[in-house]
């Protein structure tokens, strides 16, 4: 499933890094501006889907395969559970609080930035997983 259209391939070669950079911007500024983990992750998953559609299945399998998807989602969910559990238990057990920087900086608002990054990873891999399962019947 490889399209030989020159315009499509060249435009995607220029635009896909821009799309991924914009999605990383939306994820990392999720606590300061509109957007967040789900919206940025959906855009990142869209860039993976475009890569699959334009450059073919064998090209994207070198970057993302089933092993990477399972490991990425599992490790992300483990860290999500650890962070949410810490913020849930730290009030009762008097654990040290997460420092909240000055409002407006990137490294502020405590645990919201790592949680946004984790949600972005999970959503992007899930979008690509659903599409690949739907198109090829396997991952």
């Amino acid at each position, binding site marked *: 499933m490889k399209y030989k259209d020159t315009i499509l391939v060249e435009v995607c070669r220029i635009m896909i890094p821009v799309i991924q950079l914009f999605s990383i911007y*939306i994820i990392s500024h999720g606590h300061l501006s*509109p*957007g*967040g983990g*789900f*919206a940025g992750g*959906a*855009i990142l*998953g*869209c860039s993976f*889907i475009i890569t699959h*559609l334009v450059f073919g299945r064998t090209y994207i399998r070198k970057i993302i395969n089933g092993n990477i998807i399972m490991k990425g989602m599992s490790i992300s969910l483990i860290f999500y559970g650890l962070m949410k559990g810490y913020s849930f238990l730290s009030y009762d057990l008097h654990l040290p609080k997460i420092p909240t920087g000055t409002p407006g900086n990137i490294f502020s608002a405590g645990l919201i930035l790592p949680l946004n990054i984790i949600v972005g990873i999970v959503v992007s891999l899930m*979008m690509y997983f*659903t*599409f690949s399962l*739907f*198109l090829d019947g396997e991952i």
Partner: protein
Amino acid sequence: MELFSIIMLISLIVFSISISIVKDLLSTIIVFMVYSLIMAVLWQQLNAPDLAITEAAVGAGVTTFLFIAALKKIKGENK
């Protein structure tokens, strides 16, 4: 309401009627994508930029790709 939003709303009605009229399935998918994109502009006009980003990513991106994948499966079965 501004004139721009009124034009957008009228074009939404036109697109949603034309989705049910057009016979070609690929054209229907593309018109549906344009409908979703205009909906994203309208969310921006209504001061909801968070919803506009999500609508543009999910409604115009992922849904279109899933519809195109389904259309490819359907045509492969027939031919």
